[in-house]
């Protein structure tokens, strides 16, 4: 049996090594002292022996354990230090605040922990170790699945759970009854795999008394436990591969669109676009989408005032074949179009702003998304007006959009509710060269005011312009006028993602869960029955052995014993039962489990 089972080096497992000698040493000694002081010791062999030794070490339990611990430690810094993938701005800020330490941390990949060389090395080694350990185990298990239950051991006294008794039935009847019971109700899916046998008489040997010829039953259940364990480990490998393939093939684009407008699924139509190495632009299905309307709901009760409650975007999707349909996108409910998912990631207001320059020409007209900065949608935005009439200064506006504005006593304005009940646009005005012609890409939501001149009032303070919808006001310093449209359109930030591996990732994750459950909770047990006639009575003994902790082994053996015809258990004075013969009560459970 044991030579047919592959065991990773360093595994402590009495079930597969064979029979325990006693209940006491079936458990590890509590002292925690390593029971095998034999540490890794490089053999003095050639390079081939060296390779084999390295491989054996790598696929040993000890190394797997070390790698798991390392993985946990290596994952840690990524939760403490800002990460480029999650928050690139925070990384820049950190580098600014800690120039020296930051540079060193960056050099060692501490701002990209989960793609760093060392993190990848640990999990790849773990995967190699896992494959190296799992493949031979799978082969051995496939063989074991076809093997017979293990031979009936000579002595039952050594087993943690062990019952003896007598019966009026013959040993043959006992063997039949035992095997019927152990096989269970379903023929196709037997509880136990059972083999009955016969033993010749045994002469007395030393302290061992002799025994007449006997019938035996050997039974084993729980092959699925090992299957589950292997499934679990293999599914982990599948999971990692599926995730990696997804990384290579995915793409993701972000677009901000306002009510009544739309976008097409093409790389150029996204504000930002990012994709894996195996991404092919042809995989973008050229559908298009229009935002018909956007609605939001906020709490109005005093406790949670202004907290968001619901967001709904009504959209129309037009497929490449020209057919179109109405859809909605909500938080938690992305819209699926042609294998991609479209998420509602953000929303806000995009007031319609028109700037007329000093010469009366329309220098700018359009919807400007103002990004909300707090719960009441105090939203910040900028308007860059480079296209003024020749000879004039370019104009930059920075300001806030307040959906429901109140003006405080000191003249400042603030928003008190996220819905546009009393909207107000507050602007500061700059003039000069916006620097847009320099060819350096600029953030559309930021105005670099370093080279610009602010408009000041007579006291030297900044001029602030206040506009309600429909207003048109003069810009200071004779720059022209600015007008706010009557309606305030909403905008939504959409995130479109395509990842063809999702179904595989989920499948492997669920298989891993299934395998794990089987591997931890399916009992793996062996039960043996022996029966012989001596002095006109039929004697019966039943023993059980379980893999790992198994509180139900005792019950299993009791049931197997109870299923025999007309049996009577030996009293405590007789041969009795090994292990805690805890009277079969709940206390017995306790004692039994403490012994296993």
């Amino acid at each position, binding site marked *: 049996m044991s030579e047919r089972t592959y065991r990773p080096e360093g595994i402590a497992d009495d079930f597969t090594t064979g029979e325990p000698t006693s209940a006491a040493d079936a458990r590890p000694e509590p002292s925690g002292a390593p029971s095998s002081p034999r540490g890794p010791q490089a053999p003095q062999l050639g390079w081939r022996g060296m390779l084999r030794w390295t491989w054996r070490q790598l696929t040993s339990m000890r190394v797997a354990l070390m790698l798991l611990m390392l993985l946990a430690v290596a994952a840690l810094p990524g939760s403490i230090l800002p990460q480029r993938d999650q928050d690139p701005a925070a990384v820049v800020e950190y580098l600014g605040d800690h120039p020296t330490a930051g540079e060193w941390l960056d050099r060692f990949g501490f701002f990209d922990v989960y793609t760093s060389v060392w993190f990848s090395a640990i999990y790849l080694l773990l995967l190699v170790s896992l494959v190296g350990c799992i493949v031979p185990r799978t082969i051995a298990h496939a063989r074991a699945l076809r093997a017979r239950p293990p031979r009936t051991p000579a002595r039952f006294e050594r087993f943690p759970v062990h019952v003896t008794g007598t019966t009026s039935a013959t040993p043959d009847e006992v063997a039949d009854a035992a095997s019927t019971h152990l096989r269970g109700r379903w023929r196709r899916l037997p509880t136990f795999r059972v083999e009955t046998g016969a033993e010749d008489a045994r002469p007395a040997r030393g302290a061992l008394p002799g025994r007449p010829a006997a019938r035996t039953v050997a039974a084993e259940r729980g092959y699925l436990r090992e299957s589950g364990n292997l499934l679990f480990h293999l599914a982990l490998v599948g999971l990692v591969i599926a995730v990696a393939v997804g990384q290579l093939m995915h793409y993701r684009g972000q677009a901000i669109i306002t009510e009544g407008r739309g976008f097409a699924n093409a790389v150029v139509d996204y504000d930002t676009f990012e994709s894996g190495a195996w991404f092919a632009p042809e995989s973008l299905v050229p559908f298009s989408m229009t935002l018909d309307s956007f609605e939001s709901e906020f709490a109005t009760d005093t406790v949670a005032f202004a907290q968001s409650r619901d967001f709904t975007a009504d959209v129309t999707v037009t497929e490449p074949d020209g057919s179109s349909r109405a859809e909605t996108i909500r938080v938690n409910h992305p819209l699926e179009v042609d294998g991609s998912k479209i998420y509602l990631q953000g929303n806000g207001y995009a007031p319609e702003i028109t700037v007329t320059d000093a010469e009366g020409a329309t220098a700018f007209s359009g919807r400007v998304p103002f990004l909300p900065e707090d719960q009441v949608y105090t939203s910040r935005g900028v308007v860059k007006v480079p296209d003024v009439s020749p000879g004039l200064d370019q104009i930059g506006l920075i300001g806030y959009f307040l959906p429901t504005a109140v003006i405080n006593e000191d003249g400042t304005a603030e928003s008190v509710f996220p819905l546009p009940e009393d909207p107000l646009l507050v602007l500061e005005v700059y003039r000069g060269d916006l620097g847009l012609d320099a060819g350096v890409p600029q953030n559309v939501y930021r105005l670099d005011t370093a080279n610009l001149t602010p408009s000041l009032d007579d006291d030297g303070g900044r001029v602030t312009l206040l506009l309600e919808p429909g207003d048109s006001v003069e810009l200071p310093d004779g720059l022209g006028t600015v007008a706010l449209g009557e309606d305030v359109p909403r905008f939504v930030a959409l995130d479109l993602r395509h990842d063809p591996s999702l179904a595989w990732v989920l499948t492997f994750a669920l298989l891993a869960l299934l395998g794990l459950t089987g591997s931890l909770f399916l009992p793996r047990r062996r039960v043996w029955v022996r029966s012989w006639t001596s002095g006109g009575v039929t004697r019966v003994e039943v023993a059980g052995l379980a893999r790992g902790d198994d509180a139900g082994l005792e019950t299993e053996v009791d049931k197997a014993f109870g299923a025999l015809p007309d049996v009577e258990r030996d009293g405590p004075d007789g041969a009795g039962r090994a292990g805690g013969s805890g009277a079969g009560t709940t206390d017995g*459970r306790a004692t039994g489990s403490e012994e296993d």
Partner: protein
Amino acid sequence: MEIAELSDLLVWAAATTFAVAMIAFAIDLGRRTDERLEARTEARATVGAGASGAVAAPDGAGPAADVGPGGPARRRAAGIGLSTSWLGTAMLGVAILLRGLAAGRTPWANMYEFTLVGSFVAMVVFLVWNLRRDVRFLGAFVTGLVTLFVVVGLNSFHVAATGVQPALQNYWLVIHVGVAITATGIFTVAFVLSVLQLLRDARETGSPFLTRPGFRWLDRMPAPAALESMSFRLNAVGFVMWTFTIIGGAIWAEDAWGRYWGWDPKEVWSFIIWVVYAAYLHARTTRGWSGRRAAWFVVVGYACVLFNFTGVNLIFNGKHSYSGIS
């Protein structure tokens, strides 16, 4: 807001009741230590007289074998501990229900509620287990921890009962968070078992600190191997639930945030916890690592669970900032 106030009152009452239970259980532990000592002296006397009468059960037999000198000792203090535990748990359960009614949603959407439900689960695990076998020796520690949790929850995490933001309005709130809390409650009891295992083990191996008479109560605990096996059984259940929590969280994140995994601090720590408990399961079966060393993994794992719940919510600024505390 009357229902919410009633809920808060009940939580205070439950915390008080748990404190009473803890004291009762502690008295029971102390008493039994004394009884045992008497039993031992008496046994020695009888053995000296050449008879082999009723002797206290050997150490390893656990608290079930509660045979004092005059037959099974009555454990009135433990009985009080148990009944107050049931009472406190019932009150906490009602408080959680009322909280859900007041907020009009599943009552586990912020740190305060998470604390309540996690404590509730830990108590239920302890009490239900105790129906099947005698684990009263855990009482003082479980009720002690739970009292601490509930009081910290009331004082530091309490927020008003109200609705939740759109990303949380999902059946996954019920499943993912519910399973995570249950796992946490189970890990809590398993942690207690592993700590007792380590203490008992250290006492047996002659740790100078733990061999002091003040730790005599440890002798009444089950043997380290028995504690380890109980702890494992709970940890195995907890680990499977944690695995499910992570998978469920990933499915939810895919819908709510547009990616199933993004190494958000909460995700990082859930992963760390998972890996630590996986390492624990491996340690148990690795030669030289089972027993005491494996128990340390449970301690580390549980520390990570606690940190994931408190530190990650309060210190780091991730997508999981749902504590409701600003």
